[in-house]
């Protein structure tokens, strides 16, 4: 295995005549936290959706652990250990918290097509579900419908569901969006814990969080890579400062 988990080569996405992402070469090293930042409209989310295969690139290649995944379907990608989160918290609103997590765990039982089996076969997952819910502090809410949770708790539930898959590569799309300051610290801690032994790629606006968590930062601007490096390197880069401030440094 190479020590590069995710690699893109000349990744390009064209919407009509507009290049949302143009020739992006990205290398995410194994077992690191890599952040993708940039001003609004820089192509972060498009890039993210391309890597997770929710969008099909116009040209370029994407590799996961050295294997070409450019034409792999998103669900198949998840089964290969690469799981994404969404910008808005993405839960199953009218399932309970426990069921939300259980759906993720259920996949490994290979019974998800068995419409003739009773639901009770899923009870053997209950202990694991409880454990996962405890780890994000939602155990006491396990019987509540996800739709009833506060926004921050929905994000925690989403994270719990994602972690239940024990993914090798985690992709977070703005994990802190819409979270209160108190919740942010909790999620930062959870991501740090979850990242142990895993590779994380995240899109994030909160610079405090990026500085705190990231090993490597890639700055995108107008669909292209503007700079890459540690937080110190990137934050001292005059071009990056110009891109963010809109002026000339």
């Amino acid at each position, binding site marked *: 295995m190479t020590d590069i988990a995710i690699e893109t080569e000349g990744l390009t996405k064209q919407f009509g005549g507009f290049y949302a992402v143009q020739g992006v070469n990205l290398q995410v090293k194994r077992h690191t936290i890599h952040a993708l930042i940039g001003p609004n409209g820089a192509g972060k989310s498009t890039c993210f959706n391309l890597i997770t295969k929710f969008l099909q690139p116009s040209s370029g290649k994407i590799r996961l652990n050295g294997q070409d995944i450019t034409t792999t379907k*998103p669900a198949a990608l*998840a089964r290969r250990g690469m799981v994404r989160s969404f910008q808005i918290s993405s*839960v199953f609103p009218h399932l309970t918290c426990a069921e939300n997590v259980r759906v993720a765990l259920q996949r490994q039982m290979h019974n998800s*097509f068995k*419409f003739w089996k009773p639901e009770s076969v899923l009870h053997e997952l209950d202990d694991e579900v409880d454990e996962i819910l405890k780890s994000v502090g939602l155990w006491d809410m396990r019987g509540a*419908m996800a739709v009833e949770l506060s926004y921050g708790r929905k994000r925690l539930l989403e994270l719990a569901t994602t972690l239940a898959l024990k993914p090798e590569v985690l992709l977070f799309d703005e994990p802190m969006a819409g979270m209160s300051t108190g919740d942010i610290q909790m999620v930062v801690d959870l991501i740090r814990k979850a990242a142990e032994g895993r590779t994380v790629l995240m899109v994030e606006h909160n610079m405090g969080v990026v500085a705190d968590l990231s090993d490597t930062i890639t700055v995108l601007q107008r669909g292209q890579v503007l700079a890459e490096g540690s937080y110190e390197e990137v934050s001292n880069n005059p071009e990056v400062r110009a891109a963010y401030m809109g002026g000339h440094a």
Partner: protein
Amino acid sequence: MASKTSGNWKGWAQFAVAIAALIVLPFFLYPVFLAKVLCFALFAAAFNLLLGFAGLLSFGHAAFFGFSAYVSAHAAKEWGFTPELAILAGTVVAAFLGAVIGLLAIRRQGIYFAMVTLALAQMVFFICIQAPFTHGEDGIQGVPRGHFLGIVDLESNFAIYYFVLAVFLIGVMVIYRTVHSPFGQVLKSIRENEPRAISLGYDADRYKLMAFILSATIAGMAGSTKVLVFKLASLTDVAWQMSGEVVLMTILGGVGTMLGPIVGASIIVTMQNYLAEVGQLTLIIQGLVFMFCVLLFRRGIVGEIKHRWTQMRGGKDEPAHLSPGKATGETDGAPVTHG
């Protein structure tokens, strides 16, 4: 979780009472009418499997109901199949038809899905007009009810009622099991949030197709059974109005509940039967009842009762979003929250 066992016990008690009621009912009401109600109730329950639990609004379910009716009528009349084999033939054909239509329609979302199913169902309708074995406008008349397993004569109205009741119970149990199975759990998650289900590694299309085939199969089973009750398969069963009627029944009773479609079908069929004297007015009254229900209880009759009940006991809420809002891309006041 603690009340699970007592809940189960209560559930079984209710189930036993319902079965007992269904067994004694033909002594008070006309058995053929009751058998008709059961056929449509099964049809609506099959439709609800798709709309209520997969969030897919099909506007072509008459194709499965009606075409299977022709198949089972032909099998019973021309080939001399026994009733259970005739129903089996209709059901199997519905499954294949469901696989073909499902495969073509499932790639589309929302209103486009509904339109594709409608278009394909219309093709089935025209095949039924043109094909010689359906006898066009005449339909297949005088279908013999035959002998169940070659032994029990179903000519008596009581016999056919209990036969239909058995088919109905089998169908409803299959639906119940499907909804409460590992598969049903994944299906519900896709209904709730499809991109998220995909990101967890589930190929949403395959699950939706499976649900579509199951729903079509049971709709076909209902249509095949109806043939034996009325000894007739006609174009009415396969026309688009039938697709609309089953949507009406399901929404009226309560989408996404087990009992809802059964209650909805009972109300619609009863109205059609007892209002038959007033002719065209039936449709107007039906329309008014539907409008009244949609305005006052969006969850449908059963859905609303369930909701009030759980609210009174301060328990967890049942899904209120199960209107076809998601399927038509609209959220008619009962929002689908993906956030």
